[in-house]
């Protein structure tokens, strides 16, 4: 038991988290903690926005402030929370899951993290110089004439794009070249498949956004006229650039989450994942198809009307691989022996809420319906069901699931469950009424609304407060358990992926012996999985 005792007695030096460190696990934790901080910032902005919308009229924020808050809420949540927190999971887990010692390019990896804090500071600093106020979509010409903060915003998003690209290069190279002996592609954990599909999308789509933002920044500071209508610039051009990245970004924000819950269901159902290859292939299918649907955000815009049809078709086809995943997860829990731990609850919540996001996506893809609901609260509801009900649920599921591995401590299940129910009820309460508001005629991004929308907005505001409060049990649980929760064994869930074969937390070199892949990661019911107390798996380091 030398490894485990060593890990237990070793005094964790927290200062390393504030330095340039090339250990992928340190970087992973840096990512997770930093991005959670931005989640709270983005959440606080959302609370202000929801408070303003708690009743008609403009009481708390005026039109300018409101636009600034909503712009930063969206930008922080997307660029500084969901995309990078998932990269944080990738950093921490990919090498461990494929049995590697570290990432392929550790220094690049550190750089991709250290780009995030300055980018975050820039974005928040923009508040003090006249913040960006044209939405996270930054449509021209509004964004070209916006105050100085819009330039800082653009620079911040450019930096975050570079960070994301560097991360993607690392993920792909690491996965392709550093797998444990005996691990073929069809042995990869589904989380790794999800990250691979994500990384490929990032590599194709992100440079486009970065290039577009550079054009906007040049228009703003160097007097170029790329988007100046009087000089022949075309506002629809920006929308094409923006959505060429930002639609794939939706999948960049959901595929890793789908990977996370594909790890969780088999473990807590004690059953192999149902349809492994179908799930892996559907991730790749979504990543390819996802690159061809962007103009479905532009059906009402000045784009060529005939071109809308192919985008409608591709957008609808995405329902097929998405459906395959949902049904496969149901197949996994079917006839299992389910254990309702906190990560399992969040994973089940993911299915039930993501489903709503997915189904309403078909409504939005249908052009005649979209011409009514586009740019309304229907879209706000849809995207929050995908990104909050979906991605954020998956992130929480993953945080709880790997908490023992990352910290070497156990979290408190009771608090975890309180957190789950607050989050689940809050999400539905907050976003379901928004569908109705949108259908009935409430546009999005408005500081004020007609009195007939008061009821639905009040429900949404109550739900939002519940969501805000739900972070408290989580934070308390995470901090207290990390500091003095009970020690976790190396494999508390009796899981089969490789990260559970090393100690919790893993030693700096990850594995004492270079792991060899012997057991397929989802062979539940076919091999004996022992927990550390009795079994061979955890004592591999002896």
């Amino acid at each position, binding site marked *: 038991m030398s490894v485990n005792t060593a890990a237990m007695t070793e005094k964790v030096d927290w200062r390393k988290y504030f330095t340039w460190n090339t250990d992928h696990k340190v970087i992973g934790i840096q990512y997770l903690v930093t991005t959670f901080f931005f989640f709270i910032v983005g959440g606080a902005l959302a609370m202000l926005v929801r408070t303003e919308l708690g009743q008609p009229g403009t009481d708390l924020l005026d*039109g300018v402030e409101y636009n600034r808050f909503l712009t930063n809420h969206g930008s922080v949540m997307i660029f500084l929370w969901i995309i990078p927190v998932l990269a944080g999971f990738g950093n921490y887990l990919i090498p461990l899951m494929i049995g590697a010692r570290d990432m392929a390019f550790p220094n690049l990896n550190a750089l991709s993290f250290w780009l995030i804090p300055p980018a975050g500071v820039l974005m928040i600093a923009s508040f003090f110089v006249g913040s960006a106020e044209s939405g996270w979509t930054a449509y021209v010409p509004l964004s070209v*004439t916006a105050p100085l903060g819009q330039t800082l915003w653009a620079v911040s998003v450019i930096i975050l794009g570079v960070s994301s690209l560097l991360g993607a290069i690392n993920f792909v190279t690491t996965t392709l070249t550093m797998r444990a002996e005996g691990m073929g592609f069809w042995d990869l954990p589904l989380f790794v498949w999800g990250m691979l599909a994500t990384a490929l999308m990032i590599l194709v789509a992100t440079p486009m956004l970065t290039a577009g933002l550079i054009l906007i920044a040049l228009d703003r500071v160097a007097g170029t006229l790329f988007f100046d209508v009087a000089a022949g610039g075309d506002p629809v051009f920006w929308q094409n650039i923006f959505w060429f990245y930002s639609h794939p970004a939706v999948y960049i924000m959901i595929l890793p989450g789908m990977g996370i819950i594909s790890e969780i269901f088999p473990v807590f159902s004690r059953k192999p994942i149902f349809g492994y290859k179908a799930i892996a292939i559907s991730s790749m299918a979504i990543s390819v198809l996802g690159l061809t649907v962007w103009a479905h955000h532009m059906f009402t815009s000045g784009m060529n009307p005939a071109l809308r049809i192919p985008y409608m078709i591709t957008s609808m086809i995405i329902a097929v691989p998405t459906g395959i995943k949902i049904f496969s997860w149901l197949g996994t829990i079917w006839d299992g022996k389910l254990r309702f731990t906190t990560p399992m609850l969040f994973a089940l919540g993911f299915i039930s809420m993501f489903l709503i996001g997915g189904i309403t996506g*078909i409504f939005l893809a249908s052009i005649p319906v979209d011409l009514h609901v586009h740019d309304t609260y229907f879209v706000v509801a849809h995207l929050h069901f995908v990104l909050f009900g979906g991605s954020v649920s998956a992130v929480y599921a993953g945080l709880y699931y790997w908490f023992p591995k990352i910290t070497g401590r156990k979290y408190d299940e009771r608090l975890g469950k309180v957190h789950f129910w607050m989050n689940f009820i809050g999400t539905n309460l907050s976003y379901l009424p928004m569908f109705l508001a949108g259908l009935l005629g409430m546009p999005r991004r408005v500081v004020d609304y007609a009195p007939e929308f008061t009821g639905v907005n009040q429900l949404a505001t109550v739900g939002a407060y519940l969501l805000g409060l739900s972070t408290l049990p989580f934070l308390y649980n995470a901090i207290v358990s990390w500091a003095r929760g009970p020690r976790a064994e190396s494999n508390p869930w009796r899981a089969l992926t490789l990260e559970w074969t090393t100690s919790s937390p893993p030693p700096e070199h990850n594995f004492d012996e270079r792991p060899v892949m012997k057991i397929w990661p989802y062979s539940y019911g076919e091999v004996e999985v022992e927990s550390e107390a009795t079994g061979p798996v955890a004592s591999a380091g002896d």
Partner: protein
Amino acid sequence: MKERNLFAIIVLSLVLIAVGYLVATSVDLSWLMPAQASERAVLVDRLFRFMMGIATVVFLIVEGALIYAVLRFRQKPGDESDARPVHGNNTLEIVWTLIPAVIVAVIGVYSYRVLTEVERVPDDPLVVRVISQQFSWRFEYPESGVSANVLHLPVDRPVQFQIESRDVIHSFWVPEFRVKRDATPGQIDELVLTPSQIGRYPIRCAELCGPGHAAMVSEVIVESEEDFQAWIEAGGVEVLDAGKGVPAGDKLPDDPLAAGRVVFTKYGCGACHTLDEAKTGGIVGPSLSDIGRVAAERLQGVNAVDYVRSSIVETDAFVVDGYPSGVMPNDFGERMTPEELDVLVEYLLSQ
């Protein structure tokens, strides 16, 4: 594929489509949508209900299976063994790949048919130019030369809108017509529809266009052909407050107060400014309800007339404390006729 599977796929798809059809034709979902005030709305709502029918069934199947599994397959106390290993089932996987494919194909074809139907350009439509600008709407009827800031349409006559923007992107949306179209600077965006229900409906801007976005509203009045013609002949007389007609067209009324109010309304000042006399409640800029007194005291050595005039034509020359600069449009000087400007200044000073 076994014949039995094919059969299952066909039957399940047909059931789903049948439910969609049933909901589309017979379930009352009108509480989900505002009134149907155009022919287009009827077709769009039918498609929407069809999709709602299928969506409800899919939703119930998936959530039902989820809840069933959660209740039925929980671990028995003390049972630490694994479950029976099942890796997949080709039949099932083919079924749940193909059914969604069939369903979206049907929805896709149906959507396409509705789209071509609602977007067919009619012969001889009534042409209306929609001119959007932070944060107001203006409607011009090229055939008669009338221009107004409330949209009047005759019922049952096809309209073709030609939508433009003078500054940033806006989006012309009438929820009761079930359609919106962006106003993109530098181009003319077209939209056709046929109003089918007499009444008054809101026009809302659906694309974030700046601080006054939420206030960028107007109204469409769908009326009988006779009422519409009468309105056109009167030069687009707008009923602004109880019974007192004031034209929003180019002819200004003789009464200076009414004339000032017309100009104030025409240029959308009320979207940003509160002015009791004109019954506006904008909050982006300072209230103008007391401007006659305030103007005289704002700047030393500048009299009230010059102050108000320069506030309108050189907006950023002096920025009121606590309010953003660069928000109030700075091209009123070019857009207004000298007469309009004089009338407006006099009107504001009388407050």
